[in-house]
């Protein structure tokens, strides 16, 4: 890829930081400008609109509808926390899949996103939670294996996952220094981006044809669900945002025959990661408006 890098460098060399830019920064400092005040031109109207939105969201939250699938996901997460100490923050290391069984129960599977993190062995394993009659029971493929001994333990429990998520760079550095880190990952076949886009367009048309509620309503339900489920403060509600235009991450899906939309919300409360910061994927049923699933990804490691 050197050819690409060289050409990109050459083309971008037309854009240069000048003395004028430098002076502008120094002038703004002399004027005592707080860089964070740049958006101070937001009008009173905008602030009022935000306040109104918070009120509307709260009103919807009071009558929020969650499907059994959503409840199964929530109960399964709680079971992992109480049985194995797997916190919401660590969920960024897993892919969660909910299988709805015919008898009304659900099987929730948590697969490690980086099973090959350690040389020669998957230390994270897989968790399976069975949810039936409002009760959830979790099992781990590495049950009974020794989790003591830090990062070289036979199996990684909450202690190692905490390290990996909260001090990602140092943990990997330590693993590399001690010959524990798998340096090379296999990259699977890469589907063409255009193919994926085309597939999305077809699916979107199919889903929208089966929808009974508007996308605006779906967004309102999704936000209300987040507020309700995570007890978000007004400040957090105002900081919650969705990428739009070409950055829009919305996808459409058929979930066991039900048309759904996956809406991505981002929460960033400052320069440094703060509790609850991350990405929330809310799946809304486009026929009933009910929330089918919420996935939280702290974005701290592994799945950003």
């Amino acid at each position, binding site marked *: *890829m050197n050819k690409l*890098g060289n050409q990109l460098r050459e083309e*971008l060399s037309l854009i240069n930081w000048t003395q*004028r*830019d430098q002076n502008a920064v120094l002038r703004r400092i002399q004027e005592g400008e707080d*860089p964070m005040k740049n958006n101070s031109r*937001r009008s009173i109207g905008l602030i009022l609109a935000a306040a109104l939105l918070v009120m509307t969201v709260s009103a919807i939250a009071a009558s929020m509808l969650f499907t059994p699938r959503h409840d199964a996901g929530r109960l399964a997460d709680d079971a992992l926390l109480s049985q194995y100490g797997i916190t919401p923050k660590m969920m960024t290391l897993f892919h969660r899949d909910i299988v709805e069984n015919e008898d009304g129960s659900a099987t929730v599977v948590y697969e490690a996103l980086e099973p090959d993190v350690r040389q020669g062995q998957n230390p994270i394993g897989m968790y399976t939670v069975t949810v039936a009659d409002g009760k959830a029971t979790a099992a781990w493929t590495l049950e009974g294996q020794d989790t003591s001994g830090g990062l070289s333990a036979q199996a990684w429990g909450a202690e190692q996952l905490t390290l990996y998520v909260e001090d990602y760079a140092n943990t990997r550095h330590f693993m590399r220094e001690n010959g524990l880190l798998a340096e090379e990952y296999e990259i699977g076949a890469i589907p063409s981006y255009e193919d994926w886009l085309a597939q999305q367009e077809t699916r979107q048309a199919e889903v929208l044809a089966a929808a009974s509620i508007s996308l605006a309503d779906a967004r309102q339900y999704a936000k209300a669900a987040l507020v309700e489920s995570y007890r978000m403060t007004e400040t957090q509600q105002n900081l919650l945002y969705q*990428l739009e235009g070409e950055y829009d991450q919305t996808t459409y899906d058929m979930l066991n025959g039900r048309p759904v939309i996956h809406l991505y919300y981002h929460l960033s409360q400052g320069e440094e990661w703060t509790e609850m910061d991350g990405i929330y994927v809310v799946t809304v049923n486009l026929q009933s408006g009910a929330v089918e699933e919420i996935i939280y990804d702290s974005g701290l490691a592994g799945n*950003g």
Partner: protein
Amino acid sequence: MQDERTHWLEMLMTTHGSAILRFCALQLKDVKLAEDAAQEVFLKAWKARDGFQGRSSERTWLYRIAINTCRDYQRTGWFRWVDRRITPEDLLHRGQEECRFDSLPVTQAVQTLPPKWRTAVYLRYCEGMKLADVASLQGVSQATVKRRLAKAAAMLREKLKGWYDE
């Protein structure tokens, strides 16, 4: 103390100004907006200097600020409220040759990539950063960065077919 701090900022801007500006331009696809964003990066650096603990290099630290700043700018409509502070002096200089992306085929192709892939491509191939540093800056694993780069490469090969085959 203030002089020392100002000197530090000037050194920072002289050393990293162009690289940060180019990164912002690649992300925001608008040179003027990129100038605003890059200036803001250095203002934030000035403000946060005491919090810089030297655990990463200054370059990595600046890119961390730049990634966040560009992400804020990319939020729909955010830049509509930005006070651009165009002064008469600026207007005089704005007449200088402007960069047009449509004459930069590779840059334009990279700009069509999703923002996270674009960031990875720039940091890895333009800045020559180690995979581990790019991963740390993007807050993801090296495997994720590799996947992003591989997907970006596949897409760019498609978009720049003639150029790659030259």
